[in-house]
């Protein structure tokens, strides 16, 4: 049993603003509505010509509502990933009651897997066109630090700006880095999250591994046959609890802990025993000072590939023991697809929304739960659950595993006080 937390505890970090862009639309509201409805944004898409690709579904972000483009300088020159990041960051900062310039007390901690790759591909599209004249300037958008830098520039951040590109756990690690930076007193406000856009490189790449399902992904279901790719961004404003309360901000939840661990096993296949993933979850729980028995639900990485889901279940079984079979489990990827470098952010946001709504969102997907994985997958409709603590897990290429612990605010001890 860890020590009893207090609102003056300098290790406590709260979320005071959130923002999102995903296949359901621009803003947190369409995401929450879609998740509660058990809907999926995995549909035929038009971001690029996929007629020669093996599969034909993705969760593409729709066109932005009118007025969005005019709200951001030089919108037309921004990459898709930059646009998603800026909109989500602006929404989060607005909810937190903050505004630019954020100055030296603020930092940006962002995850991205491919940054401006979609725009980089313009060069190759032109190269492939008969008589085409590819322009090298198209390649300037490639660095994956682009979305984080764009957010730092827009909000006039003068503290640290760091981009983590550890494939599908990038944003989870970025949120963990932000948590560290606040606890260390390096920053008082962290803008943390991730952004990635659809591009042919990842679409064809995952298809080359035969990891993409022809229909919408079906995490943890019997006969599941792969993942589905999405795009978008999610951003959190994080602050030390004491400072947030001092300035009258309304904490939405607490980011209680983060942990990570590497499988050191294989470049694409997860450790089948789930040791590394379990170690990441255990590290996050230890960081939060929370016993496994206090976790009320889990938002799993849940890609829908046969190997990944099985390994993840074994990891959860290692951490939660027999109780793992009863622990409500959801997988946001069934709704918005796999957002790759920003998956950890959108899934942590889905977890936060569940904590606040008092219900766990269902995992879209047809068919029964895989009988080989005796878990309590939430399906069909939201599961009413007044949860206090939840875990969000992400597993990446190269065995980079990461997990976050989010908790309801105020916590029971705060309420008793």
């Amino acid at each position, binding site marked *: 049993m860890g020590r009893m937390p207090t609102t003056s505890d300098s290790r406590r970090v709260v979320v005071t603003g959130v923002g999102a862009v995903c296949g359901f639309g621009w803003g947190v509201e369409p995401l929450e509505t879609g998740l509660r409805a058990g809907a999926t944004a995995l549909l035929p898409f038009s971001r690029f010509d996929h007629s020669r690709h093996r599969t034909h579904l993705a969760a593409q972000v729709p066109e932005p509502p009118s007025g969005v483009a005019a709200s951001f300088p030089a919108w037309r020159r921004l990459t898709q990933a930059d646009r998603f990041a800026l909109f989500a960051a602006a929404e989060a900062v607005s909810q937190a009651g903050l505004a630019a310039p954020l100055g030296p007390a603020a930092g940006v901690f962002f995850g991205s897997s491919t*940054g401006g790759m979609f725009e980089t591909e313009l060069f190759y599209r032109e190269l492939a066109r008969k008589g085409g004249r590819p322009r090298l300037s198209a390649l300037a958008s490639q660095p994956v630090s682009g979305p984080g830098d764009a957010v730092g520039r827009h909000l006039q*951040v003068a503290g640290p700006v760091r981009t983590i590109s550890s494939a599908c756990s990038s944003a989870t690690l970025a949120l963990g*880095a932000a948590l560290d930076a606040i606890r260390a007193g390096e920053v008082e406000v962290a803008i943390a999250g991730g952004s990635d856009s659809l591009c042919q490189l990842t679409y064809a790449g995952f298809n*080359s591994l035969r990891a993409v399902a022809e229909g919408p992904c079906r995490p943890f279901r019997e006969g599941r046959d792969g993942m589905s790719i999405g795009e978008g961004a999610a951003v959190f404003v994080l602050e030390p609890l004491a400072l947030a309360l001092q300035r009258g901000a309304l904490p939405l939840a607490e980011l209680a802990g983060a942990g990570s661990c590497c499988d050191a096993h294989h470049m694409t296949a997860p450790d089948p025993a789930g040791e590394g993933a379990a170690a990441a979850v255990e590290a996050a729980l230890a960081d939060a000072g929370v016993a496994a028995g206090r976790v009320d639900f889990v938002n799993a990485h849940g890609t829908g590939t046969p190997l990944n889901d099985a390994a993840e279940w074994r990891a959860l079984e290692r951490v939660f023991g027999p109780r793992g079979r009863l622990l409500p489990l959801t997988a946001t990827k069934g709704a918005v697809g796999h957002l790759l470098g920003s998956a950890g952010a959108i899934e942590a946001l889905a977890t936060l929304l569940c904590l606040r709504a008092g219900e766990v969102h269902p995992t879209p997907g047809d068919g029964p739960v895989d009988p080989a994985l005796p878990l309590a997958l939430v399906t069909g409709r939201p599961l009413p659950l007044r949860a206090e603590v939840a875990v969000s897990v992400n597993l990446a290429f*190269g065995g980079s595993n990461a997990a976050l612990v989010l908790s309801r605010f105020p916590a029971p001890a705060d309420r008793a006080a």
Partner: protein
Amino acid sequence: MTGLGTVGAFGCGRQALEAALRSARPALSLVDRSLYHRTGGARRAALACRNLAGWVPPAEARRMSAPSRLAVAAARMALEDAGLGRGWTSPGRPPAETAVVVSTAFGPSSCTEGLLQQIFLDSPESASPFLFTESVANAPAAQIAIATRARGAGITLSQREAGPLLAVGSGAAEIALGRSRRALAGSVEEITPLLHAVLDRFGALARPRGLAEEEQEEVARPFDRRRDGFLAGEGATVLVLEEVGEARRRGARALARVAAWGSAFDSTAAPTGWGEGAAGLAGALVRCLERAGLRPGDVDLIVSGASGSREGDRLEALTLHAAWGEAPLPPVLAPKGVTGEYGGGFLAAALLAVQGVPFGPTAGFAEPDPELRLFPHGGGPLPTPRNTLVTSLAAGGAAAWLVLARPEAA
């Protein structure tokens, strides 16, 4: 810091880099300009030594991209230099609690380019699973983890030129927070003809001065009035970081101690350029020194990330002067004229400087820039520093600093 592994144009290992730094001459190779380059412009780059068979056997190398091979070779060199063998590869030994933190500015470029060519010039269905797997930015870090059975955090940072120092800082933080006993931290990069052409297209690279034979080799001129760009460099550098007590217990030789690290952002910078925010960066730099219990006057040596970039070096000089005020700067080394930009050679050079390794005169520097008022090392002996400041300002606005203390002070 207890181990150093480095591969670059200078060759493999610290002795090769020491020789290059003493001679103050970069090892440059001609880049294939037949496909993407415009006429004129840069022709050479500091391309890394690729003879790594002694560190990455062929049977292992065939499953790795060029940057993964460079990174794994540097990691094994670093472990051996630290007296830790070449990793925990023996069956039955417990997995080490070691974090891997690696930075890359552009990721495994040849794999990305090869994959995109397959997708767009042939067919999406011809995409190679190997190229895709190795094209992800964290592939080198993951290959290090697999090769050495490092099972701590696996983090890949991408913050352009600031990345290597951020990687060391993040690795040190993993240890300081008690999450790992050790960290392998560093940087890796590869320069392809296309990446070289893009950097040249944006005027980032040093250019030949004329058609005469002696003028055809481009020279990076850190802080020089005539500077016109940097040398593109590739390679990998990995450091072994350990908790001080842990290193002492096993009798390890300490190369340096990470006294503090810090980073900041200049939001006046354009996405591909440097800004005007010297005052703000100087404030962050001074706060970084304060975290080590130091003031600017306590710094004995600066290892600057100045590369020969017109605007980047200007911002670096203005930032240092703003931090030091009226006080004179300590000796300034600017080794990127030898190591090139990217690939971590600069980070390795900084660690050698802390140990008092002799440096030749600053490559490319001859004519001071009156605006910068900064005169980098002109050769000759330097005192072994107690406190060394390592700096790196990145295009796009990021900045990072590292404060390294002399081993005796550890």
